[in-house]
């Protein structure tokens, strides 16, 4: 069966810093990477893949997103599709989900769609469930592990606020919220990198995708960002370097003085 993994190329937000003088984002030299949560999703798909299964990775993005897809191919995906077109730009989560859903529809029958928890730039965690809603398939969010899967059903362990639950769902379905992977390693070896370039790679634009053009990109976005700004900076705190007893005494004094306690 087809296992579809939705991935996104994102700036490495862990390396993003704020310029203390201008209070704006410093984005020089911030590398673009495969969204780490999407990599976990891909690794989950690889874990459950059987002989006759095919892992297809899809991404909506600018042409340079090809790099992220190539990495997925090197990690073990079988084929990749890049959805790229000026029309797709400026998409909010709904327009993104619509675009990805269109591509998935075009692929025909599938078994499972895997999505990462969230993109580390957008941080919304909405695209997965929105794709499931558009395609009208069951969704499993906050997946902890897949316990069992056959051609028709899937049994999964899902996180809850204070424990977990076991759910059973009919295929086709969508899984998201994968937050870790027990899979290692994550550095593709040379052989896999060499093989990646030889795997099928497709680039689709809006025409190839069909669908309702008004639902793509900026025009299809139901939310609009009207302003972006840096969060207020915090005053630097007090760091105490004394040996433990003295340090604790100092801290308690400060907390008292500052009326924290």
């Amino acid at each position: 069966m087809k296992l579809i993994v939705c991935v996104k190329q994102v700036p490495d937000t862990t390396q993003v810093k704020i310029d203390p003088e201008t209070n704006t984002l410093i984005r020089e030299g911030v590398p673009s990477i495969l969204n780490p949560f999407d990599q976990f999703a891909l690794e989950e798909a690889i874990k459950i893949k059987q002989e006759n299964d095919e892992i297809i990775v899809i991404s909506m993005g600018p042409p340079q997103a090809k790099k992220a897809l190539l990495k997925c191919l090197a990690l073990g995906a079988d084929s990749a599709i890049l959805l790229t077109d000026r029309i797709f730009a400026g998409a909010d989560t709904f327009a993104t989900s619509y675009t990805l859903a269109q591509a998935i529809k075009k692929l025909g029958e599938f078994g499972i769609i895997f999505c990462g928890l969230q993109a580390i730039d957008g941080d919304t965690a909405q695209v997965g469930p929105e794709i499931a809603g558009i395609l009208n398939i069951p969704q499993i969010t906050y997946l902890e592990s897949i316990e069992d899967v056959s051609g028709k059903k899937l049994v999964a362990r899902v996180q809850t606020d204070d424990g977990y639950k076991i759910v059973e769902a009919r295929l086709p379905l969508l899984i998201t919220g994968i937050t870790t992977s027990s899979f290692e390693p994550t550095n593709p070896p040379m052989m896999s990198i060499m093989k990646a370039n030889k795997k099928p790679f497709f680039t689709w634009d809006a025409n190839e995708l069909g669908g309702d053009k008004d639902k793509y990109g900026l025009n299809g976005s139901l939310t609009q960002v009207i302003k972006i700004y840096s969060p207020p900076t915090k005053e630097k705190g007090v760091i105490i370097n004394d040996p433990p007893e003295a340090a604790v005494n100092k801290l308690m004094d400060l907390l008292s003085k500052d009326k924290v306690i």
Partner: protein
Amino acid sequence: MDEDKCTGCGICEQACPFGAIKIVEKIAIMGDECTLCGACVQVCNTGAISIQRKKVDNVDFSQFRDIWIVAEIKNNKIRNVSFELLGKAIELADELKQDPCVILIGNNVKKFIKEFSNRGAKKIYVAEHESLKDYYTETYSSIIIGLISRYRPNIVLYPATISGRDLAPRVASILELGLTADCTELSIRDGLLLQTRPAFGGNIMADIISPNTRPQMATVRPNVMEAASIKENDGTEIIETNVKINLKGLKLKIKEIISGTIDENEIPVDEADFIVSGGRGVGCQENFKILEDLARVLKGAVGASRASVDLGWIPKSQQVGQSGKTVSPKIYIACGISGTIQHLVGMKSSDIIIAINKDPEAPIFNVANYGIVGDLCEVVPLLTEAFKKKISKK
């Protein structure tokens, strides 16, 4: 880009969060990285930049009225976040001169009506049925979709809890509505809901609106808004919905629920006023007792970074961070936590942050109000003693 108006001043280049603008020969050029976020449009002094959005016919949204919140019931209690959402809804409703309302879905939930009407809910939509005992995407979303379609709210707020984050986007995609996640601020501007949220791992803030769809929907994390307080209320309308759901027909079924990895008497980490949190620096599972002792004295909860959860020292339900819970307690004490962005995102908004770490370069010290460079195994027990003394003195 109107090249005639562009002076090449470069303000837009500075403002772009994606590095998409370059000034070439005194004209701003937009590159492929442009996401049409509009940050440049705001800062341009000459109005040289504009974003062409599809023109929307003036649809009459005036029939969409009231601010709804989706209540969350857990373990037969109303989760605190429901009151926080209600508090915000009342504020928004006041400004729009509309009503704050509550959606109450579940089994045996009518008994909770009073707690919401006591806190100012003007209407409560109740869907009570045995089949709604447990949260299922299919059942809860159908009910909400039905209610929205019938009663046309202006705004719907959901808690950004595990169920909320499963439910809200599902509803949004089926009804094709704008949805904004994890809002830290909500207000009314020009009659629209102004939604403010962090992005880029908390490195930037974005103001968002959903001008062309109703209802406008947003999710809000627990511990962010102020809870509605008990007040006098001159009448709450109760609207009951008939529910006809057959669980047998569901495509996804719950086979087993295992809860109680937290003690019933323990305060859940995302509802505690004081949190003592442990990371890789704690060293081993046994050492978490040191943190538990302090938490007990403070009458708070024990939290964890992802590192200590992955190492199996503490259950995932205590995890604070991007893939865990977001907390904003009065005091957050981070012990042996380096302070990666993924963790900070979950606790940055705490009132006071105290960090204890052996490594003076640990990034956690950059967000801490107070920090002690030292071994937590030595420092924390002393801290526990000090707090014990302080509290007994009172």
